[in-house]
């Protein structure tokens, strides 16, 4: 194995950054795709995959992508919640791959949420 140079430390860190951000739960943006039975039937996996592709393309390492269960509003699936840390989470409904691209570009990357696809601002209280 080659000897490490000081610059290599940064390279390794960048390479593993995405893994670590997820592990630390400390990204700038958190995207949650709701993968309940209803969501999966409505194509939530495709939505998740296209989010992942967008993340790959953008080369961003500060975005946490995760999944959760049914959000309770089965008729409006596929759904996803986008939370720019520090701001209220936004729930998007009736997603398509085209909508994902727009949401990713405008909300995730630039921080301005896309009103026309959004269901609500904020999330339920957890008891």
């Amino acid at each position, binding site marked *: 194995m080659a000897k490490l140079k000081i610059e290599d*430390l940064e390279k390794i860190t960048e390479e593993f950054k995405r893994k670590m951000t997820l592990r630390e739960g400390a990204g700038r943006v958190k995207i949650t795709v709701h993968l309940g039975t209803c969501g999966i039937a409505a194509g939530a996996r495709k939505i998740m995959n296209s989010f992942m592709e967008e993340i790959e393309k953008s080369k961003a390492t500060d975005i946490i992508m995760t999944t959760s269960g049914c959000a309770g509003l089965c008729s409006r699936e596929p759904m996803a919640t986008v939370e720019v840390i520090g701001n209220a989470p936004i729930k998007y409904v009736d997603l398509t791959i085209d909508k994902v691209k727009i949401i990713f570009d405008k909300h995730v990357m630039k921080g301005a949420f896309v009103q026309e696809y959004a269901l609500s601002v904020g999330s339920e209280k957890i008891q």
Partner: protein
Amino acid sequence: MKPYTIQLMICAGTGCVSNQSFEIKEVLEKEIKKHNLQNEAMVVTTGCNGFCGAGPIMVVQPDGIFYQYLKVTDIPYLVEEHLVKGRPVKKFMYVPPKEEIPIPRMNKIPFFSGQTLVALRNRGMIDPEFIEDYIARGGYRALAKVLTTMSPDEVLKEIKKSGLRGRGGGGFPTGVKWETCKKIPGDRKFVICNADEGDPGAFMDRSIIEGDPHSVIEGMIIGAYAIENVREGYIYVRMEYPLAIKRFNIAVQQAKDNGLLGDNIFDTNFCFDIKVRRGAGAFVCGESTALMASIMGNPGEPRAKYIHTVEKGLYDCPTCLNNVETWANIPQIVLKGADWFTGIGTGDVTHDPWGGSKGTKVFSLAGKVNNTGLVEVPMGITLREIVFNVGGGIRDGKRFKAVQTGGPSGGFIPESLVDLPVDYDELTKVGSMMGSGGMVVLDENNCMVDMAKFFLRFTQDESCGKCVPCREGTKRMYDILYRITKGEGKEEDLDLLEELSNMIVESSLCALGGSAPNPVLTSLKYFREEYLTHVRDKKCPAKVCRELLTFSIDPEKCLENGHGCGVCEKNCPDGAIYGEKKNVHFIDSMKCGKCGVCFDVCKFGAITVE
């Protein structure tokens, strides 16, 4: 890197491994494959999380969902519920004592939220067998910083300023030790990492090594650079820590492969290498001179320290020996600066390195608390916070009696001192010591004489036998304590114990003998009444010393509740119980061997013990 959406951090410290965490990992991976989730979910083995009593433990990131007491058979259900359906499973979560609602998130559990992590900062976050994980969490940056921007003197100055004191127990200022070693002339010097953690019930060092071995290695390299003329380092790990040895060896090899150990580190002219040595399990080999003798292949015996090891240590060369936790603190101090470090802890170390205790300390919390395990807390935190907040209070609602700190060389701290701030000097003032960080919590069912006897039995067994006070003195002290617990103690014994203790402390060759009487001295100081009850009344208030107990049968309970069932009679090995079936039974105290079997087998609570 594949963009995973979920990471399952399964604890692979010794505690969890012995409860099958590797098997759990295998099943997890199988189940994940079965549900075709292998591109989304990643399983990572981490070092010890510290909550060892509740192992095996798994944390699901990014949400930090904490699962405990997992079994291999639970995994298929857990994967289906949490990973496939996205519903975290409540029945595997932590529920605080006396409550019913679980706390799902790790960082909301008081055991974890009450801690400050410096030496354990990577715990549960990295796979200790991957150097990349360590680097990605900021590892080897401190080394890069010192090699490119700081002179050895500047590094030393920073460590001195930080007020860091030895975490192995003595609390000697690390910077002062380095400086002394640096000043002694010599072109061959050594640094050693003392990982011969011998105190019963202590496992801080093991967990640091198992969870984050590179932090120790990085600290050692920085130390070698600061002291200068150090090209060789040794890590002395006890044989009883196979997993720690394995992970150290892997880490050293990785550091070598990546050029972080060896010649011309980071293309500078600084060269340094580390060898791992295994100890054969003698307690005394944690003592510096005995440890060095053992590395050199000689019997592990201490020598008189008219000349300190910083002057003449390993192979008669100046040697700087520090504990695992001390080394693990070094990279953080270098990266974040001495001022950050002095911001945590007690006292003022600007002029006097002994003036305070800075930073954090890792304790292994054991005994009668609800949450046992490994905790890292800032210096100066009170015992009350450790026992009742982090530790979750005393088990089964019993009364808190004392805390024993510092292992067999430490002392007992009674309930009246529970608001004592925990740092080196405060603990020494009350007769105990920081030691390596063992903390055993005792409740009303612990007998102090019996506890003192337990620790003395350990030290007299581990005494190497080289000097008379330690070899013979601790033996005699043990004999006296044994007599007291047998009911053959005399009142003069207490004075004799004190006299012997002081003599052993004064005249022993090394710190083993010098601190061995501490449990006796402190228990005599704070619990003299309990000793007196043993010798005068021949009774043990905590009902531990069996020879002093009297077993009898409550006739009412025996007849009314149990209808004279006779189970006690059948089970008594001494034939000391008499009675007709369906009638009251009796114990013949002359024949009674005080084994306690009758107490255990009686379902009606009719056996009374006094």
